[in-house]
């Protein structure tokens, strides 16, 4: 993630709370803490990226053959 999230698109307060709770709990499992400012940034980032992440997760890509060992300097074989 690269964004400096200072604005986002209209998430509901409840959703932000849920993201905050998820973030705190998930980070705790990883042995990490996050302060209020960090959680606020995470919530803002999630408002931005959640829609594109959800669209990616819903995308039908099973028919796309992977490129094991792909050489990025060349077109696909």
């Amino acid at each position, binding site marked *: *993630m*690269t*964004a400096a999230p200072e604005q986002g698109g209209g998430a509901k307060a409840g959703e932000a709370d849920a993201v905050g709770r998820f*973030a705190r709990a998930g980070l705790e499992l990883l042995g*990490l803490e996050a302060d209020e400012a960090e959680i606020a940034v995470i919530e803002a980032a999630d408002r931005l990226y959640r829609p594109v992440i959800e669209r*990616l997760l819903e995308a039908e890509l099973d028919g796309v053959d992977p490129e094991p060992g792909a050489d*990025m*300097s060349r077109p696909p074989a």
Partner: protein
Amino acid sequence: MTELLDGTLTEQAAAVAGGDADPSALLDAALARIEERNPSVNAIVDTFPERSRQMLAEAPRGPLYGVPVAIKDEWPLPWRAERLGAAEYLGPAPRPGESGPYRALHDAGAVIVGVANMHEYGAGSTGHISAFGPARNPWNTDRCPGGSSSGPGAAVAARLVSGAVGADGIGSIRYPAAYCGLTGLKPTFGRSAMQGHHVPSTTTIVSGPMCRDAADCRLLGGVLFGSELTASEPRGLRIGVVPGELWDDCDPEVNAACRQAVEILREASESTVAEVDFAGREHVLISSILVGSTEELAVATPKRVAGLGDDVSLIARALLRYRLLIPAATIAKSVRVRSLVRRSLAELFERVDVLAWPTVAAPAPPLENPTVNLPSGAYPADYANPRQAGLANLAGVPAISLPVGLSSEGLPIGLQLLAPWGRDELLLDAAEALERANGRQWVDAAPPLARPG
């Protein structure tokens, strides 16, 4: 010597090679220019005059003999480890050494006069965050210079040097090139020197030249490639434009300037323009970020993230934590998107020679609030920019950003061209054709602080 310092890399190399300029005097002039002008732009974060003089004394008579250049704070030098624009390392502390770009510059006879600033950890497209303080855009020092190669962009635009080496993992050469009115080449993956980079297993990051015009990128790019990049006259190009958000969700001034530039290129090269598309376009933004950041931040384990102190930015500390919470399925899906767009591009490049769209959707945003206003709404520049530039890194193809205008606020506008794998020279040819057709109006434009007198 000041006049030559304002010249292009090609002019400087020719003057030194022809005996018309003393390289020692040129080096001293460059160091004096950095001392005088760098406080306004914070482009150069470290100079080492004695090392530079030693480089000159030992320089072979290569294509850049005696020419001052800068290098992004992303590679080790024999006397300095990279800092990545950050106060703390995410992984093990690097050591000084001979990186690929250093060796290429050294063997070409170039003189490294400074290390250039960059966005913290390379994780941003604006350059407004760095342990060294933000680099500033020479066209308006309250604006972002672009990132993550912020310092190379600001240094060349401010005429501190005429060429700099940047790195591009998700557009990091092309954003500052567009914001600062420069020409920046993101080479085909694997074609330019990368040895010694802190992400040795990268499949997205490349080194590349950032200069004023395409001829200079050809010169510096050839040094980084280790082979001359020959020039040809582009005739009968098949130019593809992709309808939709890549054009339509851009600032109207950016859209207009880039459309005009494509039309000028079409006329100048007796080319054709056709609307085309590629599969997976809607997932390029997130996939390029996920693939790139997964590789770049592989060392960012929970333990290491926990150990970062307050001298690392709040944004970095928070987003490193957020990244650890991203579902693994998205990474796998991003890899599938990568295969999808690579296959689709391979087919598309059978029908077109180059693709064209704006490098960034809006001119350089304010440092204090790097938000861009687009027809679809206001977004952090870091969110909007990978949509425009991420494709080239995801697919491995070359891309170039070249200046094609100024906004009503006097900020540069950049057009991006993409070509098939290995056709980097075609991008330089097309960029030179457009420069000529424009009478070099935009590549020779100087920001206010770099104008003579």
